[in-house]
């Protein structure tokens, strides 16, 4: 067990990081992510007014998210850096938001400060959050909640189980198909046990959660993205919809718009890229990256061994002129410069059910 964002969390269960990782990719893994923040934005007047106000915090099209659908969001600051990344869902008469554990206090304060004129910002403090991930997640969960089989990637639904409502989304952070399930505290243990009773499911700790999201090319807040990295530098341009870009219906109007729109137009100075070390030595966070002529060009922000890739994988920021896929660079590990290549992400193909 290790301290993590104010919670005691298991790095691994008895199975161990490697097998937990591979099991999630082959069958289904259950993650306790109850430390994450769940928040409801309940409109005072109209959903549309709340959605537009929420857009003032993010370079994201909130209004265009249909009822029953979820989207990835990014809170930006005035200098175009990232305060947090999050998921939000249109649940008809309100917005449901899931934020990172380490940021949840600040996020709730931020939303309250900017949105309380149009909606109540209500932290959900009486529900746990479980993630069930992997190609057999649907089969396992459908035995308890048959309706989940009809959900597609990024759908959300409120479905009954054991006399309570589960708030289910078909999403996750492993690159696999799967679900995140918000459950009342009193039933969270029973739901976890019911899922672990399914033959496909093993419990998975933080270690494998990290290697799974790294292979999927997904950012970890505080490591790969933070208040200094812009969404464009972070390669999160896909999360900025047309409506908020130059020429769009609701261009700008979010914190840091000047920098972010400028970077969208003329390209950022540095870009987050995938990095594949050529040898077996993992290149971990903080590893300095150099061009072959010795010029410092960047730094690894996440790195380790990819159990499914069967080789070390990393991501980090490099100067834009070194970011092309296939570029040969070097990373310094224990005083030695070792070869690495700028590579496409994800490192392992995703299996979302679209």
């Amino acid at each position, binding site marked *: 067990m290790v301290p993590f964002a104010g919670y005691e969390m298991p790095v691994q269960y008895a199975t161990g990081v490697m097998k937990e990782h591979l099991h999630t990719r082959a069958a289904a893994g259950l993650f306790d992510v109850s430390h994450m923040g769940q928040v409801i934005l309940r409109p005072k007047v109209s959903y549309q007014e709340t959605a537009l106000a929420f857009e003032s915090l993010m370079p994201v099209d909130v209004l265009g998210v249909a009822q029953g659908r979820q989207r990835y969001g990014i809170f930006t600051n005035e200098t175009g850096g990232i305060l947090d990344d999050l998921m939000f869902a249109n649940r008809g008469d309100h917005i449901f938001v899931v934020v990172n554990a380490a940021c949840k206090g600040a996020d709730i304060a931020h939303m309250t400060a900017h949105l309380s004129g149009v909606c109540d910002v209500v932290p959900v403090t009486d529900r746990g959050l479980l993630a069930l991930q992997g190609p057999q997640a649907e089969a396992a969960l459908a035995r308890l909640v048959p309706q989940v089989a009809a959900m597609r990637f990024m759908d959300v639904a409120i479905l009954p189980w054991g006399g309570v409502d589960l708030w289910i989304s078909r999403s996750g952070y492993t690159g696999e198909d799967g679900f995140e399930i918000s459950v009342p505290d009193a039933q969270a243990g029973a739901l976890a046990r019911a899922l672990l009773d399914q033959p496909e499911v093993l419990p998975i700790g933080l270690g494998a959660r990290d290697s799974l999201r790294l292979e999927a090319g997904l950012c970890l807040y505080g490591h790969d993205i933070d208040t200094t990295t812009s969404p464009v530098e972070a390669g999160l341009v896909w999360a900025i919809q047309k409506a908020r870009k130059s020429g769009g219906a609701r261009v700008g109007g979010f914190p840091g718009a000047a920098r972010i729109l400028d970077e969208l137009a003329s390209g950022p100075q540095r870009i987050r890229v995938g990095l594949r070390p050529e040898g077996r030595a993992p290149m971990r966070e903080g590893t300095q990256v150099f061009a072959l002529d010795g010029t410092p060009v960047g730094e690894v922000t996440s790195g380790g061994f990819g*159990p499914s890739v069967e080789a070390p994988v990393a991501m980090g920021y490099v100067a834009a002129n070194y970011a092309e896929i296939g570029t040969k660079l070097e990373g310094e590990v224990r005083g030695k410069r070792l070869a690495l290549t700028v590579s496409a992400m994800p490192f392992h193909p995703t299996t979302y059910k679209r």
Partner: protein
Amino acid sequence: MKYTKDHEWLRVEGDVVVVGITEHAATALGDVVFVELPEVETVIAEGDEVVVIESVKAASDILAPVDGEIVAVNGKLVDNPGLVNEDPLGSAWFFKVKVDDLSVLDEFMDEDEYNDLIG
């Protein structure tokens, strides 16, 4: 077999000492994915960082338990780091070190003492 407080085992073969890590250490490290060995003929002093082990969790070092000269390293670990988890007390030895005087081993723990340490 002798044991160090850093969870290494030491086994005498003629006038050399074979060094590996204990099962307790291998379990604590987790799945080993990378091993970097010293060069043969390297002269080492007690406490030197001679081997780098990386597991899925973190990087760690094996420290030289004694003064001496490396006379052999186990190249199999470079290609198959997982051997450290599968057979830590046998085929996953790390290096062999030639020492001047085998009596330096007397200061290390025997199996019972080591079991007390990790118990």
